[in-house]
């Protein structure tokens, strides 16, 4: 009973903290808009390319909405719920939790429940807005079961799984920061797209089950239909035109399907329980395997908490062990004769040293390898794609590290706080340029210079706005994945896809605007 109570209160406090964040209202507004987009057909699901769709009844709309919500939760939900342990460290509640009788498993399961309900509230607001709009603008009040069934079947397990993975990543050494964010993004994209190519062991969204059910209904009406391996769904700015419609009353609830979805929830709970092993319970001197994560710090983490994560060697020693007690009267302090003035190069070097010092030796080694390979194979697109990902941990810290390390009051009251921001951006740009210098100077990929200016400006602005690396990470990963990794010319900032002039101009203007905003915006109000 005590464990249940502890679990419930952990979940409730986690949920309350999330809901009282002003950003929740913004997310809710975005979800309501997405619900509206389903009803208006901006978000659509079609089969046979963009040839067939179901009759717009509650079952169809509910399924489109649930799949859309589940897709968004899979790709972006992770970034919304991660950092929960880091938040407890920053709020200084970690020692209270660690010294309380609550078991680590109970605590983590509570956090998991809080995060899952949070994601469900967001997805639920999409469903609710769809139901309300369906009643007002559509055929009438929908049958609750028609919308609720796909929601329970698809969205609930996905929310549970995403939150579980986020917690597990945070408990595992080295995955709590940017590296974990990048790995998750790649994994999530792979998991979501894999069912399109055939049966897979983990069909997170149950896409194949829905596809098979819809195909069966469609072929009854259009036996001659030529259908692809998977339906298409997404956000479209233009209407698809006249689509052939077919009746579909929703997916049949088979015992196998329900068991698989329930299994996903159960598996998520098991994953969270398993994460209690490497959790470490906020121990500032973690076990050796946890120290392996040192050098890959999360920007969300409070460095004053698990100091070992950042500086294992230092924290291993007793803090005061080798420091002599100060004399009873301090040494005399003379007046300073030097004049104070802006020294851009000194500031740039100081900022550069600070930014590079905290990176692990493996990061430096990788960066050097990429720089060398860039000069050796300047036209190799794959190298350029990786080069645009490698400095992400460094960029993620821009505008964030001051807040996380609670240095902001010192920086903001120094003589040149704006120059510090410019220097931080310049360091980010210099690192970016170093990594793409070969392709730019040797391979003629001059368009990559746009990214050199744009990406650190985006990171700095996002960091200063959100005080967290997550906003930058998710925006940048999407841009990188579409523009650079998939070589989409219209979004390419990395010199991989012959971006049109309008794109390069757009990124340049955005870079200037973001940099100006980041530098000029002051915390004081």
């Amino acid at each position, binding site marked *: 009973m005590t464990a249940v109570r502890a679990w419930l209160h952990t979940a409730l406090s986690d949920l309350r903290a999330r809901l009282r964040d002003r950003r929740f209202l913004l997310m809710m507004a975005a979800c309501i808009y997405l619900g509206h987009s389903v009803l208006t057909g901006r978000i659509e699901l079609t089969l046979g390319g963009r040839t067939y769709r179901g009759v717009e009844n509650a079952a169809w709309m509910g399924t489109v909405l649930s799949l859309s919500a589940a897709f968004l939760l899979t790709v972006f939900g992770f970034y919304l719920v991660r950092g929960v342990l880091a938040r407890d460290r920053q709020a200084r509640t970690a020692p209270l939790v660690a010294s309380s009788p609550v078991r680590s498993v109970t605590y983590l399961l509570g956090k998991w429940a809080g995060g899952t309900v949070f994601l469900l509230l967001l997805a639920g607001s999409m469903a609710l807005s769809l139901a309300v709009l369906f009643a007002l603008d559509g055929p009438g009040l929908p049958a609750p079961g028609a919308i609720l069934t796909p929601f329970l079947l698809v969205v609930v397990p996905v929310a549970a799984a995403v939150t579980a993975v986020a917690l597990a990543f945070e408990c595992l050494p080295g995955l709590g920061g940017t590296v974990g964010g990048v790995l998750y993004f790649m994994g999530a994209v792979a998991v979501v797209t894999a069912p399109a190519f055939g049966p897979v062991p983990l069909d997170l969204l149950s896409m194949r089950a829905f596809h098979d059910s819809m195909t069966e209904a469609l072929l009854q009406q259009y036996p001659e239909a030529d259908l692809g391996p998977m339906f298409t769904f997404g956000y479209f700015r233009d209407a698809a035109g006249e689509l052939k419609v077919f009746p579909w009353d929703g997916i049949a609830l088979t015992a196998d399907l329900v068991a698989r979805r329930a299994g996903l929830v159960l598996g998520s709970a098991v994953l969270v329980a398993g994460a209690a092993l490497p959790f470490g319970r906020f121990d500032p001197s973690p076990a050796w395997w946890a120290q392996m994560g040192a050098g890959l710090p999360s920007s969300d983490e409070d*460095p*004053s908490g698990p*100091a070992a994560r950042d500086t294992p060697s230092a*924290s291993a020693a007793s*803090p005061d062990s080798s*420091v002599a007690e100060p004399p009873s009267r301090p040494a005399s*302090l003379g007046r300073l004769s030097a004049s104070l003035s802006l020294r851009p190069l000194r500031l740039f070097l100081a900022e550069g040293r600070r930014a590079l010092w905290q990176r692990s030796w493996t990061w430096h080694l990788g960066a050097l390898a990429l720089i060398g390979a860039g000069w050796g194979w300047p036209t190799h697109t794959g190298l350029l794609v990786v080069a645009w990902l490698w400095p992400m941990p460094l960029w993620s810290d821009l505008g964030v590290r001051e807040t996380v390390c*609670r240095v902001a*009051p*010192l920086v903001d009251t120094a003589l040149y706080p704006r120059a510090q921001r410019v220097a931080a951006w310049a360091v980010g740009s210099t690192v970016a340029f170093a990594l793409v210098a070969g392709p730019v100077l040797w391979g003629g990929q001059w368009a990559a210079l746009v990214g050199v200016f744009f990406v650190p400006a985006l990171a700095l602005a996002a960091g200063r706005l959100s005080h967290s690396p997550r906003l930058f990470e998710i925006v940048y990963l999407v841009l990188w994945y579409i523009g650079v990794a998939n070589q989409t010319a219209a979004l390419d900032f990395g010199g991989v896809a012959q971006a049109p002039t309008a794109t390069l101009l757009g990124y340049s203007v955005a870079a200037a605007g973001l940099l100006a905003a980041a530098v000029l915006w002051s915390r004081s109000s």
Partner: protein
Amino acid sequence: MELHIDNVSKTYADGTRAVRDVSLTVSEGLVGLLGPNGAGKSTLMQLIATITKPTAGTLRWNGTDIVDHPATMRRVLGYLPQDVGMYPELTATEFLDYMAALKGLPGDAARTRIDTLLDVVGLQDARDRSLGGFSGGMRQRVGIACALLNDPDLLVADEPTVGLDPAERVRFRTLLTDLAEDRVVLLSTHIVSDVEATATRLAIMDDGRLATTSSPEALIDRVRDRVWEWVVPRGELSPVRDRYPVTKATRDPNGVRVHAVAAQQPDADASPAEATLEDAYLALLSDSPPSLS
């Protein structure tokens, strides 16, 4: 050197009025800003340090409005925030050098200054160790060194002795006294003993307002001859606390010996006692203060 605070108020977006119509002029010497937790001391410090802007009133340094011209203040400011943070991956020397660059110190001067400051705060032996492994007291000492990097004319220290052990506290007070000889030092604290022996002037805040400004001696004079000591039975301490500001209660074979401020002799057995700054401070903040003329 003069800091002039004129009718300054600060109301946060949620409606909290942290500072209400505070006026204060501060010149060379050590000014102790005393007040209970939540009195508005830290907000006033942040206003002076140009971290936040007032919703009303003006702050001037040597006649220049520091809200309009924050660089004027930052050039001469040394600020030690209540919860000082630092980059754990840097050593003490590297961190101070980084902050020196932000404060506009040239490299050579910074190196000399850092060397001196590490001596002053007793961290010379730990200069090349990562800050991530520093204890709370050591971090505080780095913060003090950081605040003194640019040789400030105005040193603003917000609860600087939190986390320091008794020896470090004494040492820090001595340092502040030395610095205050030719600078303005503003020290915020809720611990009376931090300012008792060092402050040339006290400003006491309560509920966002400036309750009084005075020299420590004048403040003590307000309660002189009104401080009493007597022994009460154990069960009667609570009613005594309700009636008088009790500044000390110690065990006694016959009950509890109380040290309290009262305008009249509170008990037939009460005898006059030596007045302290703590008596004056608590009497001032008491709900039913004795008449303070």
